[in-house]
């Protein structure tokens, strides 16, 4: 375990690792966007569309209470035959990650919406605002502020879970590093570097989340849900 090993196994392979990291970021960002949209839809249906409420509750519970690895395998191998999509492992990867997080985010949004006092809505209505205006101008800004830290936190969960997309052959950082290990059978330097990159990345994202939470609390005096 000399410095030469680090140069040969890690530094000289930096292109592969960087390409892998780029795929990791791509999968995570798409999954995160999908989770926010999906979570918002699930949450709104659960709160305001009475006939569909049971379906929303079952979906939220299913996404939250099924382990991510199981969901990933299920979406990759069962969905294409069942529904005809996703067409690639890449989309299966972000879809499974997005579905699970949408369940968690739906509950986060719900806590946020229910935290806005009823009187504010009534005041908005009596001031002549429409329900849509009330939601987008009165309720939503407060929900976003209050739930921002948990939303950031959910992104770190996605990053951690995204390591599993390597199992379905998506060429992310984890996958690239395992490929390199299988070429030389010298795992120490590569796997340690990969672990370090992931830990640092998650640490930076969650520190940003904490910073954001403190900032919001100071600026707006809000108690953040976490």
């Amino acid at each position: 375990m000399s410095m030469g090993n680090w140069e040969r196994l890690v530094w000289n392979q930096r292109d592969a690792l960087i390409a892998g990291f780029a795929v990791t970021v791509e999968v995570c960002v798409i999954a995160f966007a999908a989770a926010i949209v999906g979570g918002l839809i699930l949450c709104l249906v659960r709160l305001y569309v009475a006939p569909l409420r049971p379906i929303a509750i079952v979906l939220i519970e299913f996404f939250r209470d099924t382990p991510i690895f199981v969901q990933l395998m299920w979406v990759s191998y069962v969905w294409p035959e069942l529904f005809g999509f996703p067409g690639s492992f890449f989309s299966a990867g972000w879809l499974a990650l997005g579905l699970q997080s949408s369940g968690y985010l739906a509950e986060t949004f719900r806590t946020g919406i229910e935290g806005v006092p009823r009187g504010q809505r009534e005041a908005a209505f009596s001031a002549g605002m429409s329900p849509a205006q009330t939601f987008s101008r009165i309720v939503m800004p407060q929900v976003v502020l209050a739930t921002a830290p948990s939303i950031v936190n959910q992104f770190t969960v996605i990053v951690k879970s995204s390591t599993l997309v390597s199992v379905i052959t998506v060429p992310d950082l984890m996958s690239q590093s395992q490929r390199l290990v299988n070429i030389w059978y010298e795992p120490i330097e590569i796997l340690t570097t990969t672990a370090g990159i992931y830990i640092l990345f998650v640490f930076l994202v969650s520190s940003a989340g904490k910073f954001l939470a403190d900032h919001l609390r100071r600026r707006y005096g809000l108690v953040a849900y976490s």
Partner: protein
Amino acid sequence: MSDSLKQALDLSLFWEYRGILLQGLVFNALVFLCAAVLALSAGLGAALMRVNHFFPTRLIGTLHVELFRNAPDYIMLVWVHFVLPLLIGIVIRRRVEFHPFVSAVIALGLVYSGYFAETFRAGIEAIPLGNLDAARAFGMSERLILWRIMLPQVVRRMLPEALNQFVSLFKATTIVSLIAVPDLMYAVSMVTQQEMRPLPLYTGAALTYFLIILMFASGVRAFSERWRRKILA
């Protein structure tokens, strides 16, 4: 579509292999139990280090928490299984290999010790300082203070959160199949290779885990709510 739907929901194949699959589930439970014990003890250790007055001790505790809380389960699992034995081997100059089960317990135990440490710490910091001063004034030893004054209050306060983390830990045990611990997912992939019918098998696995975790999670939620109202109010 309706044909494949019928196939996906026809769980008779899943039922046919119930013996192997159930054995796999037992492995999930075993990994969970051993990792939980490790996570609780290492977590308590790290939390006590973090609230220590001695700075280097506090630093080690903080490093432990930040390292393991921010590490993805899967990379830790692979690292512990493939790198840690080599490092130990270099130190003791002998070839070392970990049984997959041991690697799984160490990796998940360490990752969750990071989460448990934070839960313990929140519980410890919520104890009024006066309690500790009073105990010291009575001449209680530090060890006695830990067991009689601190832990009972900490456990009471952290119970709901800790139960949630146990649920997460159980979910995490599904990835141990990736280093060939013969758990339920491992059994499913083996049977899939034999039968070439992933639909009913993966659907069955997803439903099985979902039902088990739903049962635990909703039990935990109901319990936490009652607990918060009764004990923490």
